[in-house]
């Protein structure tokens, strides 16, 4: 009887086991649209050796500073990318290995996957830099390239080398020759300034003693559209970066502001109040009104184009508080995408098309991002007041303003919110805009 009981229990268990664990056929659940199995990636570890002078003539102390800076600028550039991690020179390692110069194997032991060596010379008052890119795994040279330019432009030359390395290793265009334009307090006025992506080489663009704000690049990077109070009224102007000439684009009654050029360069989305209420309009490049896109009692502002030019994200307080909405370029199919915080503004559509970054107010303004359906909410910068985000043309970096150090300065970070760097000093910076790729 006991044996029968055992057999009976085993039989029952085996039947249960089959039904629970041994389902026949493939059971598939589709979770399309949700981020599954997203893993953090390991950035490529890259080492940049100190640049070496390989010329045959004597050089000045100034030249030796340039040589040293070449290596430092290249290190900073590559470290700026979320896909690279700089491997610093470890002198402790060298001392213990009794090495006076790092070898490829030495770099490999420091976990570097690639090593860059720079050779500098100064022919005819120019600077010529040759870089050699080595793989430490295969211990062989992958690429070498030589660049030359006027000595004063050595920063641009090193940025070009960084672009070339990014192209060789990632296949992507580098952003190291891109520019940023921003508004800055200058006495009682606010003038426009332009600088390299890292905040260096700052140059003043406007000098009219008035308020110049909300700059935006044209898709070819040759023009800057901005709002100026130079005629006492807020009008939209276009600045030619090559000739420095300024043309009036829109001077309708009331407010003319927040211009954003479409990716095809044919239209300008902007905010006008000529009909009494702040609405978004579509202008042609000469400033002629093509269409009114929004039509509500609420305030609509801060338009930003999707990279395919088919949709526009904007801020509206039609729900009682400023929130981010998307509409197509005809002004139809409006839907809300921001649901966190009671004050959301300054949307910027990623050039990759997948995310929208904006400033959201909790206790303070912070930079957040969502996907284009409003899901996957991520806080990227939340210390101090962080506002006015603008994305780099590769969609990997964000420039924004922050008061975390007291005064309003420009900061950059990658799209994951890491590697936050202050790139301006002196305070009073606002409304940064990142240029497209500059050829």
């Amino acid at each position, binding site marked *: 009887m006991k044996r029968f009981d055992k057999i009976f229990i085993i039989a029952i268990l085996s039947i249960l086991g089959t039904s629970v664990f041994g389902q026949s056929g*493939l*059971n*598939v*659940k*589709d*979770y*399309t*649209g949700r*981020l*599954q*199995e*997203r*893993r953090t*990636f*390991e950035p*490529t570890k890259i080492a940049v050796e100190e640049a*070496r002078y*390989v*010329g*045959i003539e004597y050089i000045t102390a100034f030249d030796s500073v340039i040589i040293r800076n070449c290596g430092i600028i290249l290190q900073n550039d590559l470290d700026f990318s979320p896909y690279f991690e700089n491997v610093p020179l470890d002198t402790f390692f060298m001392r213990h*290995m*009794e*090495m006076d110069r790092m*070898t*490829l*194997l*030495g770099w490999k032991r420091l976990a570097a*996957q*690639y090593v860059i*060596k720079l050779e500098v*010379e100064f*022919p*005819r008052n120019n600077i*010529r830099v040759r870089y*050699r890119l*080595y*793989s430490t*795994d*295969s*211990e*062989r*040279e*992958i*690429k*070498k*390239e*030589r*660049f*030359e*330019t*006027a000595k004063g*432009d050595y920063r*641009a030359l090193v940025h*070009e080398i960084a672009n*070339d390395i990014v*192209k*060789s290793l*990632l*296949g*992507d265009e580098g952003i190291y020759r891109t520019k940023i334009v921003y508004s800055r307090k200058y006495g009682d006025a606010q003038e426009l300034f332009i600088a390299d992506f890292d905040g260096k080489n700052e140059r003043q663009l406007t000098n009219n003693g008035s308020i110049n704000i909300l700059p935006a690049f044209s898709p070819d990077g040759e023009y800057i559209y901005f709002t100026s109070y130079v005629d006492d009224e807020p009008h939209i102007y276009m600045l030619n970066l090559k000739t420095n000439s300024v043309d009036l684009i829109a001077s309708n009654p009331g407010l003319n502001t927040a211009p954003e050029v479409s990716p095809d360069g044919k239209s300008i989305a902007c905010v006008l109040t000529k009909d009494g209420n702040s609405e978004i309009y579509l202008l042609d490049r000469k400033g002629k009104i093509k269409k009114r896109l929004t039509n509500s009692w609420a305030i609509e502002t801060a338009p930003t184009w999707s990279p395919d030019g088919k949709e526009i994200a904007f801020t509206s307080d039609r729900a009682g508080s400023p929130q981010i909405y998307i509409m197509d370029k005809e002004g139809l199919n409006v839907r809300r995408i921001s649901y966190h915080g009671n004050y959301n503004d300054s949307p910027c559509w990623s050039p990759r098309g997948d995310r929208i970054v904006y400033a959201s107010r909790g206790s303070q303004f912070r930079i957040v991002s969502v996907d284009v359906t409003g899901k996957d909410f991520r806080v990227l910068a939340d210390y101090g007041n962080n506002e006015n985000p603008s994305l780099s043309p590769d969609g990997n970096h964000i420039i924004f303003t922050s008061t975390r150090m007291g005064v309003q300065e420009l900061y950059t970070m990658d799209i994951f919110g890491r590697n936050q760097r202050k790139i301006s000093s002196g305070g009073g910076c606002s409304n940064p805009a990142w240029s497209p790729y500059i050829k």
Partner: protein
Amino acid sequence: MKQDLALSFLLHFAVILTLVILTPFKPQYKLDMGDVINVSLTALPAVQPQPEVMEPVAIPTPVTADEPVAVVTETKSITEAKPVEKPKPKPKEKPKDDSYKPKAETGKENRAGLENGQKDVSENLGAGSRFGGAAIDNASFNYPYWFVQSFSKIERNWTNPVYANEPISCIIYFQVIRSGRIIKIEVERSSGIDAFDSACERAVKLSQPLPPLPNEFTDEIIGIHLEFPYSPG
């Protein structure tokens, strides 16, 4: 009785004393060092010599005016003239190839299924890679760095949208031209689940463009078979 007990006690004591005295004094403790790796602090193994890599001899003398060095306000790249570059020492490349192949054969079996002219490049997937295997049509393409960079870029863009209770896998075939541009993507072996196949295809599409093919590689196009596996749990 008491005498017997005393005798027994004395005998035991004598035996223990004898054992203690006769045992030679030798410490039995050995410092446990675990797995010791001997490191030479004085000399590193020699790196594979790179001829004229950073030697001043290899640096070309200042370029003369008729050399194609463009002095421009905009920085321009000057592609190195190919003849200047000394050919890689072939005898040193060869043994590398030889050590390369057995690894591929004895290592993880390429589930992509090799056909004529294809070469298993699974060992370039890197540690912790989520891919199951990889093969290339051009057997002469021996640039591990290119695989590492390309595969990690595709992996970054791969998001699995399905949950299944059985292992599945999909093989994507794609072709890359010199500039790194992907010109053809197709599902070579379907997993049987459309959502999974299209996610794998999308991962390759989103990785456009891949790093350009190395200058030394002379063919214009390469074809890659990449396996995207999924295992439950």
